[in-house]
């Protein structure tokens, strides 16, 4: 038990140092714009089909479930509002974070671990090029930028999925659905939860990069880095979300009502 606690504290300490190194280096030249752009494509663009289709399916299922509950209370007209509030506030950001943690976290962890095992990182260091700046910082910057954008897409897909489910049952028009959906949605409901995913992006890239960058033990290490990246980043996203929700309620009291 004590050794487990030791290992956990060591992980947190190492990750903290890694994060500090990342923040410090991110603001020093040279800025790896080309790598950042490449990673935005890899992380953002290529995650889009997964994020949109998942958002659509979750929106559809959520409406089907809430409908059966709200109908009992005669509140079926509230379905679009409940759908949009739950999506904008929590489901969109969290599902986007978890999906990206699964797809991108594993990718970053495995890619960097593969580079470590194949001595590519050593080769970059030998060329006097800062491997940390070249490989880790672009992943972090790209994840921070891509996550909020992907969240907007998952929100839109979720609302569309919800509309389709509701339309198939109640023949509601799109205009009315959207009117009801956005009746209680203000900027404070939309902007802070969407922007909090930038922190999720930071966590995903940081944790995955750490596992990949410090990988050992050959191909076994590559597999371990990929798995650990997904598990640890998903767990940290959920834990951080608790803190962020409280912080948003504190900073934007209207959203807590």
């Amino acid at each position, binding site marked *: 038990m004590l050794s487990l606690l030791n290992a956990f504290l060591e992980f947190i300490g190492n990750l903290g140092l890694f994060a500090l190194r990342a923040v410090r280096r991110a603001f020093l030249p040279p800025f790896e714009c080309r790598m950042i752009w*490449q990673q935005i494509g890899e992380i953002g663009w290529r995650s889009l089909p997964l994020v949109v289709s998942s958002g659509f399916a979750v929106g559809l299922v959520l409406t089907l479930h809430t409908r059966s509950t709200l109908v009992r209370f005669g509140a079926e007209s509230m379905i679009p509002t409940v759908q949009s509030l739950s999506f904008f506030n929590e489901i969109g950001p969290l599902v986007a974070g978890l999906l990206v943690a699964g797809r991108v976290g594993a990718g970053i962890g495995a890619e960097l671990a593969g580079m470590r095992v194949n001595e590519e990182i050593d080769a970059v260091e030998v060329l006097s090029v800062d491997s940390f700046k070249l490989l880790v910082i672009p992943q972090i910057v790209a994840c921070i930028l891509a996550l909020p954008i992907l969240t907007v897409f998952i929100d839109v897909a979720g609302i569309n999925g919800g509309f389709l489910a509701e339309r198939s049952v109640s023949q509601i028009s799109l205009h009315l659905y959207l009117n009801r959906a956005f009746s209680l949605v203000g900027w404070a409901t939309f902007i802070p939860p969407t922007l909090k995913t930038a922190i999720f992006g930071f966590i995903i890239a940081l944790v995955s990069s750490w596992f990949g960058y410090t990988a050992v033990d050959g191909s076994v290490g590559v597999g371990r880095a990929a798995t650990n990246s997904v598990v640890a980043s998903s767990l940290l996203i959920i834990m951080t979300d608790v803190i962020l929700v409280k912080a948003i309620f504190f900073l934007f009291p209207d959203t807590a009502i």
Partner: protein
Amino acid sequence: MSGVTFEKVSRTFAGRPVLNDVSFSIASEEALCIMGRSGTGKSVTLKLMVGLLKPDTGSIRIHDRDIVNLDEDGLSQTRRLMGFLFQSGALFSPFSLNDNLALPLQRFTKKSKQEIDALVQTQLDEVGLGNDRYKMPAELSGGMRKRAGLARALILQPSILLADEPTSGLDGVTAGEIDDLLLKLKEKGTTTMVIVTHDICGVRRVGDRLAVLDQRRIIALGKVRGTSSYRLPDTFRLMRRCRRLSNRYLHMW
């Protein structure tokens, strides 16, 4: 001036000593080949030279500058004097061959894009990969990767080239081509070379001296005589004197 000097260098991994009190010196523009069984610390020796690993004790000097206690900037400056050919080529996989070679030029020279393009093309032509310039590393064969790795190692015209098993895993013809490239470089007389290898033909062709690592130390160090002849190098005699270990190597020659 000495190119590389090891003085009483020791290094352990997880409590297991790999090098113990190893000392040797390589003169500028000399080609030293290092042989030995797997796990005797040959690659570790190269990684210590380039600062990828730190020794537990001892000093390592590159062009008379101790690199053991250098900070990141100092180490980075020293590394620019060295080229490193990794065993697998270790090309940076997200970049094309062209970008792998252009990267150090873009970072550490003030050359224009046209000059960099021309230099990359020349370097790739030298190793016979001029037509594969825009291929990704995954599209190259093992031999091509090694040649590309060599081209990248030489792109900044380093004064020291470290090569980790440049011909391992290659057929005789391709291994001969790599040796030709190393020999050509040696004939220019501007580069100190340290080559870790298992290939005695390569040692005869390229090496000036041969060191044999075993039991955590250098057990033999001597001149390779007559690179074009099939006579045994002097090192063989040195090894024969090493009563306890020589039999292990006799079959290799």
